[in-house]
C-alpha cells in the first residue's frame, strides 16, 4: 500500500508556481527524501501533504485519505514537523509534550507509556522540567519530534528537520528516525543536504516546483550518463576556476579538496584537463574516473534543466 500518492498536485501563489504537476507515490514503511535546493517547493509539498494547505489543482491521498475532503482524518494519523518547529518556549519539556498529547486526545493510559518512551529515545528525560526556550538547538529539535509523535502517527512528515542543527545532533536525529522506521512508521523528510538524501531509502529530486527524478539514491545516480573525473590538484579552488572557464560551469564543481568534472568523453577530457592545468602552472596529482555522488547528479540534472530552458 502507498503511504501517500499525488496526482498532478499543483500550487500556484498569485503568479508564482510553487509546485508544478507533482505526481508521486511513496510506499509505506520507508524513508522518502524530498531533495532540492532552497525554493524548490519542498515546504509547499509538505504543507499540501499535511492537509493544511489547499492545492490549486491536482489531488493527494495521504494514508488513503483525500487531502482536502478528509483533511481532519489525515491530521489524526500523521505527525508533522514544520521547518521552524514551534515549541512553547515558556513551557517546560514535559508541559510541551503533555500539551500536544492533550490536543491529540491521547488517553491517559496510553500516554504514560508513550511519554516515557519518547523521553527516553530523545534523551530528554533529564530535562523534563527545563523550559523549552533553555534547550540547545539539537534538543529543541528532538523535543519537536517528540511532540509530533505523541499520538503514534503512521506517517511522519518532516520539513527540513535538521536545518541549522550541529552535525552530532543531526546524526542523533537520524538514529531516532531509523528507530521509528523499524517500528513501522513511514517517514517523508525534505532536505537540502545531499548527505542526508543518501540516508533515505528513496528520494525525489525537486527543482523549481517540479519533480525531476525519483528512485533509490543509486537509481538516481544511474540517471547520470556522464562519467565523473576526480581531479586532485594542489590549489583546488584555482583549478576549479580555470576548468570552469574552459569547460563550462555546469560540468565542473568543487568537492572539498577535489574537483569533479562531468564528461561524455572521459579519455579525451582527462588529457584536456591535464593540459589546461599545466598551462596555468597548477600542479596536478591524479585524474581518475569515480562513481558519481548525489551532488554530481544534482548539479548535472539542474544544469540540463537550465539548458532546456524550462523555468518555473
Amino acid at each position, binding site marked *: 500500500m502507498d503511504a501517500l500518492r499525488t496526482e498532478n498536485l499543483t500550487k500556484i501563489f498569485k503568479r508564482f508556481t510553487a509546485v508544478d504537476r507533482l505526481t508521486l507515490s511513496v510506499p509505506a514503511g520507508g524513508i522518502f527524501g524530498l531533495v532540492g535546493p532552497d525554493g524548490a517547493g519542498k515546504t509547499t509539498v509538505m*504543507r499540501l501533504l*499535511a*492537509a*493544511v*494547505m*489547499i492545492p490549486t489543482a491536482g489531488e493527494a491521498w495521504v494514508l488513503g485519505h483525500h487531502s482536502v475532503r478528509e*483533511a*481532519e482524518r489525515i*491530521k*489524526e494519523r*500523521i505527525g*508533522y*514537523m*514544520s521547518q*521552524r*518547529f*514551534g*515549541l*512553547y*518556549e*515558556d*513551557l517546560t519539556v514535559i*508541559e510541551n509534550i503533555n*500539551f*500536544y498529547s*492533550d*490536543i*491529540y*486526545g491521547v488517553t491517559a493510559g496510553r500516554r504514560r507509556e508513550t511519554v516515557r518512551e519518547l523521553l527516553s529515545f530523545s534523551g530528554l528525560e533529564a530535562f523534563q522540567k527545563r523550559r523549552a526556550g533553555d534547550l540547545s538547538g539539537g534538543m529543541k529539535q528532538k523535543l519537536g519530534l517528540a*511532540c*509530533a509523535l505523541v499520538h503514534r502517527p503512521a506517517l511522519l512528515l518532516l520539513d527540513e528537520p535538521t536545518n541549522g542543527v550541529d552535525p552530532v545532533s543531526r546524526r542523533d536525529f537520524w538514529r531516532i528516525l531509523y528507530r521509528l522506521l523499524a517500528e513501522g512508521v513511514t517517514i517523508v523528510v525534505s532536505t537540502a543536504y545531499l548527505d542526508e538524501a543518501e540516508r533515505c531509502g528513496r528520494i525525489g529530486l525537486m527543482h523549481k516546483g517540479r519533480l525531476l527524478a525519483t528512485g533509490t539514491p543509486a537509481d538516481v545516480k544511474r540517471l547520470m550518463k556522464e562519467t565523473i573525473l576526480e581531479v586532485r590538484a594542489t590549489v583546488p579552488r584555482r583549478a576549479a576556476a580555470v576548468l570552469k572557464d574552459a569547460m563550462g560551469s555546469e560540468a565542473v564543481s568543487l568537492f572539498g579538496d577535489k574537483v569533479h568534472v562531468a564528461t561524455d568523453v572521459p579519455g579525451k577530457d582527462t588529457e584536456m584537463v591535464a593540459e589546461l592545468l599545466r598551462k596555468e602552472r597548477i600542479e596536478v596529482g591524479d585524474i581518475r574516473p569515480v562513481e558519481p555522488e548525489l551532488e554530481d547528479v544534482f548539479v548535472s540534472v539542474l544544469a540540463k534543466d537550465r539548458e532546456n530552458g524550462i523555468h518555473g
Partner: protein
Amino acid sequence: MGERIIRMVIKEFIQVFRDPRMKAVIFVVPVLQLLIFGYAVSTDVRHVPTAVYDAGNSAIGRDLAARFGSSDYFDITDYPRSHAEAERLIDRGDVRMALVMNEGFEENLRAGRTAHLQVIIDGTDSNTAGMVLGYVAGVTADFSQEVMMERLGRARGMTVGQEAVELRTRAWFNENLESRNYYIPGVIAMMVMLITLMLTSMAVVREKEIGTMEQIMVTPITPLEFILGKTIPFGIIGFVDVIIITVVGVFWFEVPIRGSLLLLFFATALYLMTALGVGLFISTVSGTQQQAMMSTFFFFFPAVLLSGFMFPIANMPEPVQWLTYINPLRYFLVIVRGIFLKGIGADILWPQMAALAVMGTTILWVASRRITKTSS
C-alpha cells in the same frame, strides 16, 4: 471536545502567569489606575486661591470677603494693596481669582445704590473657571439678599418674611458631586477593555510568530476549540479584574454600589464578548506582535475618548456622535454608572445590553470566520 478546550485554557494560564511582567499588567496596573483616578484625577473645584482688594477697606467689604473665605471653595491667600498688584498675582498664577471692591463700595450700599464687585478670574482652564463663577454667583446672591432684607427690615421697623424664590439644588445619584464616584466605575470599563484586548490580540499572533500556530493546525483541534481556548482564559482574567476594581472601589474609595452585582456581572460578560472579539479580530489581521499592539492602541484610544468616559458625548460634533454608537465602551459606561450610582436595573439598561450582545456576537463571528485550519 471539552477536554481539549480545558487544556488550551490551562496552557494559556500557565503562559500568562509564568511571565512576571504579565502578572503585573493584569493585577497591579488596574489597581494603579484606580488609585490615580481615585486620588489624583479630580474635577472637583475646591480651595481656589483668591486675592481680595478692597480699595475702601470697608467693614462690609471685609464681611463679604469673609463669606468667601469661610466657604470650602475659596481660600483667601492675599490682600494686595492696589489693582495692579492684584493683576500681577493673577498673572503669576499665585491666585486663580481676585475680588476687587472699588472706593465707595460701602457708601453705595448704605445709600441704597448698586455696589459693584469686580471678579477677575484666571480663565486658562475654562472648565474650572466656569465652576468658580458659579460659586461666586451663589455667595454674592446670598449676600445681596441679606443686605436687602436688612434694609427692608430697617425701613419698616420689623422683620420681614422671606418671600423670595430660594434655589435649593440637590444632585441625585452623586450627592456631593464627587468626581471619583463618576470615574471609578468608568475605570472598570476602561481597564477591562485594555487588558482583555491586549491579551487576546497577542495570544494568536504570538503563536503565529513562534511557529506553534502551524503545528496546532496539523492537530485534530477544531477552529471552535481553538477560539474558545484562546478567549476563555482572557475572559476569566477580565472578570477577575472587574472584581478587583469593584472591591477596591467600593471598600477603599467608598464608591456606592446601589444596583445588582449579578446584573453587573452579566453585563460585563456581554461587554467582554466585544473586547475579546475585537482582540481576536486584531490577532487574525496582524502578522507580528508589534502590529497587534499598534492596532490595539489604535482601537483603544479613540474608544476611550469617544465613550463619554471623560468628555460628554453630547458635546461632540454630530458625525462623531454617530461614530460612538459602534463603541462598546460607550454602552458599558452607561451600564456600570447606572448600576453603581443610580441603582437602575435591566428594565432601563436593556437597550445598552442588547447593543453589546449584538456587537459582541457579530465581531466574534467575523473573527472566528477568519481562523481556518487550512491556508489557500
